[in-house]
């Protein structure tokens, strides 16, 4: 079947069932590359939304004046990407969540970057191990990572004090003590939840709770599910128990849905939550919107008390059929190079300074860049709470793990998140739900391996 027919068919599925949604290719212009410094180059999934993006793109444009760069702005859209691939008109580069790479690599829609890494002398050892694992399938590198978002434990010390507790009393290693701690911190009266004690942040953070309990939910090569491990079941049971004790999932979620983490009326400022693991970006929001809040940031820990974090991030991939892979490779190299990150961090720090806001760091996924940024650009704010928090996040970066690349990553994620949701909704017990999820995930992984 020709590519045109396949593209037509793709449209057909939607015609039958959904009204049309657009697709964007990489542009009709042939790359005309051949040398890294010329031709057209197109990207998808990336936006020039802030100085971190614009500074780095400007650096590339400055050094590669002969490359006609077209950035189709917007978040990565699977439908848009697949339509472009099916029509034989993919962009050269795609910027996507690292967890998607395994699936697309397995199906051959993105290129191995072995030659790119070699020719451009990209030192993969510079990237954090968790990021490297997410862009590597069967030992082959398929993407160059960007950013490393980690999860840390945020505490509202004002609420802890009200409960007669201090930050040291919150010990996530002691799972047996969590229900009592949760009961002291939460406020439930008349069946109404007005303050969350501990938010386990499940389904999203179940892999981190499972890891804290000593279990990986999927094998390191991303091909075997491990959802029926008693340690995973125990992690889910613990998380669900914390939520059920706060009025049940319905009330818990509806209360949490009212939170505005990006404004002055955030749940920290409004004393709506006492302890919660969350991505490190909230520190920026807190520094901007609630600089006087009594915020304490601690590392998430395993049951032995050792720091642990779940890492995620984006990556650049070169598509199969890219018309200008040489320029794409040069672009990726420059976007993720230490000097480029350093320039971007300086731009961010200046922008923050101009807005009278603190610069709380930049987590690039590149360890050399991170170190230089903290050695040369980062300046403590003088607010001990935020300065300590930045150091905690630095430690969490070094203790982070990531869900490995998997050929059926999307289906694996669906299987276990559906399981957690069934438990939260009261439809199934943890063991029963994870047993079904294991069967669904295994079927998907086996099919992908065929």
């Amino acid at each position, binding site marked *: 079947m020709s590519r045109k027919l396949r593209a037509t*068919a793709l449209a057909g*599925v939607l*015609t039958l069932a959904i009204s049309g949604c657009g697709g964007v290719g990489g542009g009709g212009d042939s790359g005309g590359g051949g040398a890294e410094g010329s031709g057209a180059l197109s990207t998808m999934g990336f936006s020039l939304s802030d100085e971190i993006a614009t500074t780095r793109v400007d650096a590339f444009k400055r050094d590669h004046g002969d490359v006609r760069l077209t950035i189709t702005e917007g978040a990565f859209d699977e439908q848009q990407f697949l339509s472009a691939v099916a029509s034989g008109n993919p962009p050269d580069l795609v910027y996507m969540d690292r967890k998607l790479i395994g699936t697309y690599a397995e199906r051959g829609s993105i290129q191995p970057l072995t030659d790119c890494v070699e020719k451009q002398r990209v030192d993969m050892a510079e990237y954090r191990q968790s990021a490297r694992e997410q862009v590597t399938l069967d030992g082959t590198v398929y993407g160059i990572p960007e950013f490393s978002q980690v999860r840390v434990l945020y505490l509202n010390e004002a609420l802890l004090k009200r409960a007669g507790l201090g930050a040291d009393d919150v010990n996530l290693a002691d799972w047996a003590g969590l229900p009592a701690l949760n009961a002291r911190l939460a406020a439930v009266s008349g069946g109404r939840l007005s303050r969350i004690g501990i938010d386990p942040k499940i389904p*999203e953070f179940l892999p981190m709770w499972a890891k804290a309990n000593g279990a990986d939910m999927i094998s390191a090569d991303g091909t075997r599910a491990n959802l029926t491990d008693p340690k995973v079941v125990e992690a889910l049971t613990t998380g669900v128990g914390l939520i059920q004790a706060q009025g049940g999932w319905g009330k818990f*979620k*509806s209360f949490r849905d009212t939170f505005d983490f990006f404004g002055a009326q955030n749940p920290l400022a409004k004393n709506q939550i006492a302890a919660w693991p969350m991505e490190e970006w909230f520190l920026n929001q807190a520094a901007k919107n609630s600089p006087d809040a009594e915020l304490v940031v601690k590392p998430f820990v395993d049951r032995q008390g050792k720091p642990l974090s779940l890492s995620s991030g984006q990556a650049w991939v070169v598509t199969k059929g890219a018309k200008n892979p040489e320029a794409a490779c040069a672009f990726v190299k420059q976007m993720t190079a230490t000097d480029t990150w350093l320039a971007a961090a300086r731009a961010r720090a200046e922008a923050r300074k101009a807005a009278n806001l603190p610069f709380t760091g930049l987590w690039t996924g590149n360890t050399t860049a991170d170190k230089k940024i903290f050695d040369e650009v980062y300046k403590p704010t003088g607010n001990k709470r935020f300065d300590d928090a930045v150091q905690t996040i630095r430690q969490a970066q070094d203790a982070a793990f990531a869900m490995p690349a998997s050929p059926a990553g*999307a289906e694996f994620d*669906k299987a276990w*998140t559906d399981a957690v949701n069934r438990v939260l909704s009261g439809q199934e017990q943890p063991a029963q739900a994870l047993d079904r999820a294991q069967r669904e995930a295994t079927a998907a992984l086996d099919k992908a391996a065929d």
Partner: protein
Amino acid sequence: MATTTVTPAVPGRRRRASLARREARWAYLFLAPWIVGFLAFTAGPMIASLWLSFTEYDVINSPRFTGLDNYRQLMSDPQVARSLGNTVYYTALHVPLVMAISLGLALLLKRVGRLSGFFRTVFYLPVMTPAVAVGILFLLLLNTQDGLINRGLALVGIDGPSWTTDPDWVMPGIVLMSLWSLGSTVIIYLAALQGVPRDLYEAAQLDGAGAWARFRHVTLPMISGALFFTLIVNTIASLQMFTEVYTMYFGNRQTAGSFSSDAASFYVIHLFREAFQFLHMGFASAMAWLLFLIILVITLVQVKLGNRFVYYEGEDR
């Protein structure tokens, strides 16, 4: 005699035939853009997707013929059955409610008089609201603790349900949301009501018919065409429900979080995820064709049954 009468008629028939051919050519010429569009963007893709439904196809690599495997899987996949069940359940609730409420509103609007233009606009405005915005809006309205709906229920002493998390209440919540956009049906009914001849009501009244009898024996038969049309259109739309529910439960993580519910898994949402998230385009094509056949059968049944009850002006009864 025969010669004199027949001979002049032949050029006349030829002229008429020639004129008809010319008119047909012009008609086809004017229709051509639509025909080309239909063949290229509807019929062609449908045929291609029919072929794909017999293949294993991940959009990236060439399709591999697998015969009826996708259709066998369709019959045995519990998630397909669940999503189809949800969709039918939604349709069974949504369509009668939309029709009944819209008719009630249209009857009220007809009585409003001078302000009817204002109210028509008010009722139609929600139709103009983007579906994604409606999904997000109703996530807030249906919030268990702080949503306006449960707050309203609390005023009359009712402890409102968990609309978005309790599997038993997810679908009623979605149906509630769907009633937000019934303006189109209201406008159709209003137009139909305004077309009912006044003298029929006067005659019925003279014969002693009360309000209910006039509604039952005059209004309903006279607007049965509009009722039938909206029945078919709303049924088809319900079976293709996608955007609002996808936004609420499966779309943006900022709005839906990572919580989704089996109870909100509609057929087209499942199809979309199979096609674009799990890259099972062949299977998704089979799902699309199954839905097409279901809609076709339901519509044919509705037409068959509907023709017995629908009054078409000018027809002999």
